[in-house]
């Protein structure tokens, strides 16, 4: 099939299965972001033994693929212990068993939450109910936090938790890309959807649009196909996305449009604030 595909999701191993590479995503793979996050955990950890990082993820093949042995090995070498993942059924509404296991049996210090913004809200509500709010540190994955999360869990519960994001957040309202996304949102959506993750849509679309234009200028309309669009995508270098992420520069063989993640800390109002610089993510998948 001669069709180029672009996703706001994260890169997975499966996407490398098709040659030539025609699929792209604007988020590095889970394992790549987790490796990028190791240095943050090392810096944040104050104990005299290696920190233990647990995971609570919804049961799906896309969650399972994150449990990559390369992550465990590299983390161990850097002095961080990643624990075998814990999974919850996709439709779960109670997370007591998994949270107790993480705290009482696995003795996790950090918990990476791989779930949607609503699911993370429900998890954090249980965290508070079980009295585990200050027992472990919680890190929501890039799609695991939005305005919805504090609405479900409460602002006081989410305050102080982390978000490993791949996109700037609305707290950085002066960024040209964020202003543009806000303008689009205000015109079309107002308050019927949350804004925080909305911006990843225009971010992806502006990259795909640029690739389409470049492909047209290279081959013309009659020969425009997925391969031409993909070939044009590989030519992106320092493509400005208005600060929504660092500029896009493709790396040969790496289908991740963005190769960074960033830690955000949730403030008392439930707003994620940058908690450090963009962290480079390595190219692991597809190798």
């Amino acid at each position, binding site marked *: 099939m001669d069709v180029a595909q672009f996703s706001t999701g994260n890169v997975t191993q499966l996407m490398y299965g098709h040659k030539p590479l025609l699929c792209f995503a604007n988020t590095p793979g889970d394992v790549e972001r987790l490796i990028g996050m190791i240095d943050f955990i090392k810096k944040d950890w104050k104990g005299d033994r290696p920190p233990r990082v647990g995971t609570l993820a919804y049961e799906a093949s896309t969650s399972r693929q994150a449990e990559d042995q390369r992550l465990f090995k590299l983390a161990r070498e850097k002095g961080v212990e990643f624990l075998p993942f814990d999974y919850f059924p996709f439709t779960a509404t109670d997370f007591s068993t998994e949270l107790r296991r993480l705290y009482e049996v696995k003795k996790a210090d950090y918990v990476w939450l791989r779930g*949607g913004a609503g699911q993370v809200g429900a998890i954090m509500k249980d965290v508070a109910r079980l009295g585990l709010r200050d027992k472990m540190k919680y890190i929501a994955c890039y799609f695991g936090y939005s305005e919805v999360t504090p609405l479900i869990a409460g602002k006081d519960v989410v305050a102080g938790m982390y978000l490993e994001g791949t996109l700037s957040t609305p707290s950085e309202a002066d960024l040209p890309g964020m202003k543009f996304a806000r303008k689009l949102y205000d015109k*079309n959506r107002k308050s019927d959807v949350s804004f925080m993750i909305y911006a990843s849509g225009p971010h992806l679309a*502006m990259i795909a649009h640029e690739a389409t234009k470049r492909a047209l200028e290279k081959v013309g309309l009659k020969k425009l196909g997925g391969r031409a669009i993909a070939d044009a995508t590989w030519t992106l270098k320092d493509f400005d996305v208005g600060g929504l992420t660092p500029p896009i520069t493709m790396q040969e063989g790496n289908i991740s449009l963005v190769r960074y993640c960033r830690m955000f800390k949730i403030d008392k109002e439930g707003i994620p604030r940058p908690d450090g610089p963009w962290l480079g993510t390595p190219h692991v998948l597809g190798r």
Partner: protein
Amino acid sequence: MTMGRKKWASLLIGIGLLLSLSGLSMAAEKVEEIVVGLNLELTGGLASSTMPASFGILDYYNYINEQGGFTYKDPVDKKIHRAKYKILWADNGFSIARSMTNAKRFIDAGAKLILGA
């Protein structure tokens, strides 16, 4: 009378020229169509995260069209062409089966580009 005829003749020639020029201008402004398929996740278990991103993609493509599309320099005739997107979209409900159905529908309609959340 002669002057009147000349005036009319000039007027008709003028109108003819205008029409032909506007015809040329219409030809130059012919807008090409690029089919884009949006495989959106508007419902399903992760909709709290994927629905906003999906709408963000859709709104961006509508925005491009609302600006009158975009221009590019054609590599064959070296002229500036104008294009718009023909936007096809469907909800996949976080279902692989529905995603496949949507993608097939888009490809059958001529899409060379598919975006999704």
